[in-house]
């Protein structure tokens, strides 16, 4: 279901001394089935933006349309929206509360008032998807490691089978292995179930590797919006915003300066192909 944000502004604590204009005139269209990366420096408004998409924050001005319907209409069901646009927050500690992992994951589907069988089915499916091993099913969520907690938190949202899955820094505080595992899993889910995924991240490498489209936020407004290649070609501007392009982009840059016919590349895989390509050519010559 496409989501459209139309001239959305958001101001925290409006009318007080702590007023903060966190979103400035945001216009975005999020079509079905895209894997979108959302980057920006700390405090640029990423978390604020994504909370608008499932109606947790109401825009100070502007409108948001889900599947063509204005979500601020009186008769629009926010509860329904929230089960269709799943949002996993930055800190899993904020949502885990049950005595066992399974019960915690059940919370979402149970709130949807699904039949018991369906709840069980979705719960186990979701837990499997995020790669939680069986001996942890009855463990207390509070005893898990940080990475495991995050997986359970993601499963808790996946169990609602959302059409749009939004993840706020799902890999913060994870080791490189765990990070790749979670992101691979998410990419797999995105492909298999053809859902839209919005990934908020601080890691340029991660977004370059997985996403089709990259949105860059700076001081509450959208600065760039395009494929990772397009966006990272603006690496100078990104640096001015306190961001950077993936390391390989710089390597290719340097190579070009040295006179090699290096093209653009945003992931190591692409760079490898590119370099092997022209090394091969030379050999032929």
């Amino acid at each position, binding site marked *: 279901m496409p989501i459209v944000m139309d001239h959305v502004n958001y101001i925290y604590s409006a009318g007080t*001394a702590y007023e903060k204009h966190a979103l400035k005139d945001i216009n975005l269209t999020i079509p079905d089935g895209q894997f979108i990366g959302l980057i920006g420096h700390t405090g640029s408004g990423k978390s604020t933006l994504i909370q608008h998409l499932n109606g947790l924050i109401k825009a100070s001005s502007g409108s948001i349309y889900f599947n063509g319907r204005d979500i601020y209409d009186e008769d629009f069901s926010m509860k329904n929206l929230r089960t269709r646009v799943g949002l996993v927050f930055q800190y899993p500690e904020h949502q885990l509360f049950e005595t066992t992992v399974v019960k915690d994951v059940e919370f979402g589907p149970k709130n949807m008032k699904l039949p018991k069988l369906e709840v069980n089915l979705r719960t186990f499916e979701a837990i499997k998807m995020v790669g939680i091993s069986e001996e942890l099913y009855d463990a207390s969520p509070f005893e898990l490691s940080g990475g495991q907690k995050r997986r359970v938190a993601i499963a*808790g949202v996946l169990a609602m089978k959302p059409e749009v899955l939004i993840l706020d820094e799902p890999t913060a505080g994870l080791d490189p292995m765990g990070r790749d595992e979670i992101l691979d899993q998410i990419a797999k889910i995105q492909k298999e179930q053809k859902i839209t995924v919005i990934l908020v991240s601080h890691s340029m490498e991660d977004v370059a590797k997985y996403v089709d489209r990259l949105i860059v936020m700076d001081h509450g407004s959208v600065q760039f919006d395009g494929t990772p290649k397009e966006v990272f070609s603006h690496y100078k501007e990104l640096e001015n915003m306190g961001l950077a392009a993936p390391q390989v982009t710089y390597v290719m840059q340097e190579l070009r300066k040295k006179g090699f016919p290096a093209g653009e590349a945003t992931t190591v895989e692409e760079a490898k192909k590119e370099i092997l390509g022209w090394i091969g050519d030379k050999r032929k010559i």
Partner: protein
Amino acid sequence: MIRDITIGQYYPADSVLHRLDPRVKLVGTLTFLISLFLFNNLIGYVIAGVFLAVTIKLSRVPFSFIVRGLKTIIMLMLFTVVFNLFLTEGRILWQWKFLKITVEGIQTAVFMSLRLTFLIIGSSLMTLTTTPNQLTDGLETGLAPLKKIHVPVHEISMMMSIALRFIPILLEETDKIMKAQQARGADFEEGKLVERVKALVPVLVPLFVSAFRRANDLAMAMEARCYRGGTGRTRMKPLKYTRQDGMAYLGLVVYVVTLVGLTRLWEMLLV
């Protein structure tokens, strides 16, 4: 949402009142509150009103912000006004069955609501211009003599400042947890009472877990920095009276003397 709850809110500004020593403000507020009960005639309200107006002006806090604190007592205020208005005996102005409005009734109603307004504004002016930390500092220093009779002044004020510091943090945390559960379809607004109470469990559990974790972390961090209670502890910024504070005390004395003097004089002239 929940963040809009304001408890002893501080309004950052750069004013004489903000810079005053917290002890002056504590004593001043207390004096002002007590002074409101020293009189019951027009001239007294005028003097107290003028004093308050000058202080508000000096504080540089927008008036609209100060009045916001009054919203909480609007019901109480209406009750007092209605009761005093209709139930005071005296010269009758208007009557309908057992309901009557008297001259004295109007007078008491107006005076009572004025007094309530002054009380609230007076005390909120202190919290608006003093950070919680300054406030507890002021209390600790001001109450230091009580240490002689073994009152744990330092411990009490330390607990107070930690509690005050934690209120906004926990409110923010509650907000985030509620959102995280709402994202999973939790509903806090609808349903019967039992359902609503049940709906709080997914909020309270993470909240308590996090509060205990925070408390634990804080205790560790304090120990790691060799915190050992109040004995022998010195301050980085000891409270020191300045000329400004002296002037403020003087202003306070002038206010009390004028108030008591003029109200007595007024009464004598009327009799």
